[in-house]
């Protein structure tokens, strides 16, 4: 029986597509008539052109993925072009004619949009099957596993007060407005009214209040408590408004907390005592665009669209997330059509291969994850800036990008911040100059005294072990190239590829920088959030008791500490950027670490199934934005 219904559905869809097409044709004839009118309108050529271009852009954005409509659009465009030419030819035209053309165009556009949506509806509900590598457990705020893509999947079911837009900037979401007082201690917001939980209960500011209290009171497994550090109180000022009161000034609270914290329903969570062990069944009640309806441990998640989503029903009705053991499994599956998208960056060598395969497409964009060299800057000889600078100069970043990433990475800025980031300091240009590096070392007295090709320091050869984690093969290859490059400046290194736990334990004992370091040189990398929020930079470079929680290299500088202290209390965006620019300069000069590159984000998807993926700068495509209709995106 199942096959019959599906073939029926197909024929119905075909019929509807035909209607859509004829409607598109109608739109075309409308455009033609507009063209005729445009012929008469020669006088406002320039204006018409500009308007036409805008219309074109909007139309093409609306039409992607639908060939029939696309050809219709192409025709429409051709017609428009013709109109343009004729308009140019006819020197005299009235403004009304132009307006008529415009309105005709708008009508055509709207009809095309409708046709497309109808066709989508005709093709049945869109189901997207996505691959992830590694289980993410039950996706509630206390049990999801990884920051990526675990948090991203979590946030399909929940919303936060703010939401990142495509540029990575927080925009009001559940909140209608967000305002902050001058000394950065009070963040007030009003909320969108009429939002309901999946179970139909209304969302109010009391839920937000509850969520904040809950996270703060149930420290244990939740990172959200840390986002809320410094929150003294949430003052509820109405059913739909409230104010966060902070103990000390805190810039960037929007990004760090408001756009991060899922709001949980008070009526469900009130009775939950041990959230990480509580059995919610497979489902979680949120306000998000999706409801998790099925979870098979280690295998799959099935999400259903929430048709009543406050920003509009999602474009994808069903999302199945399938767990794979590793990249290779996921890649095999997208090749065989078992999945439609991989929610994980694909390795560089796969980009051209997968792109070449129809109907697979690649979404490319900048990402904020990093590959870098760490060294123990508190220890000889790395405590010497000259040595660190020499290492920096010796790294041929472009070679690494080309060889290991086959070009699918961005050369690292010596000042840490990604060039696509809004607080990037454009004067940060990486320099590859081994000769200069050698000269620097010679000048600093690190010479090869015994002629074995290895320089000495304090009577010992400059010979070190580069520790890296074996499972990350790209990083391992970078380490291998690093060995080559350092050899060129007389520093001998060897790669020790160890198990991840061992590597972490050496570089970051007990995940606590106060425990010191057990390595000379290490390959390291931070995940995207560390860079996405530039206000976290102090964590990386402030001296250790000062707040350098992530200062794994033990770097310390008085000026950096001062800037670190100033940054979070600086009240203006411009002021903060200025501080950040200065910090980048210091980093590039003193090199607490050597940033090598930022791997580009590349996501493969099956364009015949769904192609409206939204690439959030630095974060990739895995977010609710990708699954909402364009009109609902911020």
């Amino acid at each position: 029986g199942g096959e019959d219904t599906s073939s029926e559905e197909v024929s119905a869809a075909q019929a509807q597509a035909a209607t859509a097409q004829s409607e598109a044709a109608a739109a075309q004839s409308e455009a033609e008539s507009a063209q005729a009118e445009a012929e008469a309108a020669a006088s406002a050529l320039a204006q018409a052109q500009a308007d036409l271009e805008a219309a074109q852009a909007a139309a093409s954005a609306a039409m992607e993925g639908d060939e029939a409509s696309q050809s219709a659009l192409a025709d429409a465009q051709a017609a428009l072009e013709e109109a343009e030419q004729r308009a140019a030819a006819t020197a005299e035209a009235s403004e009304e004619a132009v307006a008529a053309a415009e309105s005709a165009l708008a009508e055509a556009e709207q009809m095309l949009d409708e046709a497309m949506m109808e066709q989508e509806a005709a093709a049945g509900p869109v189901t997207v099957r996505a691959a992830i590598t590694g289980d993410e457990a039950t996706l509630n705020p206390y049990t999801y596993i990884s920051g990526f893509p675990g948090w991203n999947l979590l946030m399909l079911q929940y919303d936060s007060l703010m939401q990142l837009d495509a540029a990575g900037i927080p925009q009001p979401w559940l909140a209608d407005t967000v305002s902050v007082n001058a000394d950065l201690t009070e963040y007030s917001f009003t909320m969108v009214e009429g939002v309901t939980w999946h179970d139909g209960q209304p969302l109010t500011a009391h839920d937000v209040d509850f969520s904040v209290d809950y996270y703060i009171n149930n420290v244990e497994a939740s990172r959200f408590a840390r986002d809320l550090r410094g929150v003294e109180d949430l003052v509820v000022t109405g059913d739909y408004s409230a104010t966060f009161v902070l103990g000390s000034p805190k810039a960037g609270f929007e990004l760090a907390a408001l756009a991060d914290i899922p709001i949980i329903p008070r009526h469900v969570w009130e009775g939950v005592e041990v959230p990480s062990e509580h059995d919610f069944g497979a489902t979680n009640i949120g306000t998000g665009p999706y409801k998790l309806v099925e979870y098979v441990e280690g295998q799959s998640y099935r999400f259903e669209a929430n048709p009543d989503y406050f920003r509009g029903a999602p474009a994808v009705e069903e999302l199945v997330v399938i767990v794979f053991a590793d990249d290779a499994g996921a890649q095999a599956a997208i090749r065989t059509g078992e999945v439609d998208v991989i929610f994980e960056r694909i390795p560089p060598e796969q980009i051209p291969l997968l792109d070449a395969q129809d109907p697979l497409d690649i979404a490319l964009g900048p990402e904020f994850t990093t590959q870098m060299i760490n060294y123990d800057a508190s220890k000889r000889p790395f405590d010497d800036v000259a040595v660190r600078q020499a290492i920096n100069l010796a790294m041929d970043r472009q070679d690494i990008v080309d060889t290991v990433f086959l070009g699918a990475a961005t050369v690292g800025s010596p000042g840490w911040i990604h060039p696509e980031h809004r607080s990037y300091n454009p004067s940060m240009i990486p320099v590859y100059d081994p000769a200069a590096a050698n000269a620097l070392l010679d000048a600093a007295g690190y010479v090869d005294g015994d002629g074995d090709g290895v320089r000495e320091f304090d009577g010992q050869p400059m010979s070190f072990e580069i520790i890296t984690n074996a499972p990350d093969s790209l990083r391992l290859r970078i380490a291998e190239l690093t060995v080559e490059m350092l050899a060129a400046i007389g520093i001998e290194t060897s790669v020790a590829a160890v198990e991840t736990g061992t590597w972490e334990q050496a570089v970051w004992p007990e995940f606590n920088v106060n425990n010191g370091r057990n390595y000379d040189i290490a390959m390291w990398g931070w995940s995207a959030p560390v860079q996405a929020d530039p206000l976290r930079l102090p964590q990386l470079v402030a001296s250790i008791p000062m707040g350098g929680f992530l200062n794994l290299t033990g770097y310390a500088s008085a000026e950096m500490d001062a800037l670190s202290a100033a940054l979070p209390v600086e009240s203006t965006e411009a002021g903060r950027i200025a501080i950040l620019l200065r910090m980048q300069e210091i980093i590039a000069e003193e090199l607490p670490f050597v940033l090598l590159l930022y791997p580009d984000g590349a996501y493969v998807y099956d364009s015949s199934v769904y192609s409206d993926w939204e690439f959030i700068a630095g974060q990739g495509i895995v977010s609710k934005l990708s699954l909402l209709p364009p009109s609902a995106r911020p």
Partner: protein
Amino acid sequence: MRRRLDVRRLTQYGVVVVVAVTLNFLLPRLMPGNPLVLIAGVDVGLLSPDERAEIVARVGLDVPLWKQYLRYWGDIFTGDFGYSFRSSRPIVDMIWDRLPWTLLITGLSLIVSAVAGVILGAISAWRRGTKTDLGMLSGMISIESLPSFWLGMLLISIFAVQWGLLPSSHAVTPASGLAGWAHMWDIVSHAILPVVTLSILATPGVYMTMRYSMLETLGEDYIRTARAKGAGERRVLFGHVARNTIAPVVTVLALRIGFAFGGTVIVETVFTYPGLGRLVFEAVSGRDYPVMQAAFLVFTAAVLVANLAADLLYPLIDPRTRTS
């Protein structure tokens, strides 16, 4: 090989169990690395000392090792292994979710390899020295030398990716909503490649044992006695050779059940098959102590049960091991 179950043997089993359980407890803790990142999530570096202490206390890692050890024994007896560090799920549930799949593929592959190994081994021994024997023997030795993961990957590459005949991963099509026969077929089609891989790898062992055992039996005096009575080849084969040959094969098979369990780690990883082997691999990579402990225990139990079964089965086959 004569096996007999008695008190001393049971005591020895007991000792082995205690040592193995102890090691199961110690091994995870001997591994460098820290489960904190699993429990605390991504921002582990930002934890304050108090928060750290609270987390460690919640999962019971704050008490001295010997207390944790005693607690582990308690867990074993109560059958409650607590919650996974990684996914915060009850471990017993996780194991129950995974166990059937592992049992399915190991069970099927054991049956396949046992049947294939026994039949081929018997043919080989019966026709000792012929071309058939030579061919089978060299084939089996070659198969024995195949790297398991390589075989699995090649099968995926050929049958799933190139030809698209079979799914490359998982035990069922995720969220397919299939039911009834379609669902059964779904399970079967997903199990084919892993089972084939495991079977191919396990067959030579059975084959060799069978061939060896049968050759030995064929050389026994009582086979000559049977022939002297006028028994035909069929009667000799099925009446006299079969049962005497099967005894050592049963032992080998029983031991193999244990190994088969262990062997699933690689195969389940290659095929993303949601069995215990993959659970172990994930738990090990993530230092998920309680899951490791529980899963190791299942593995240990599997080996022991298989051994015990062999000991219990043996007297049924060989009356000499029954008490006289």
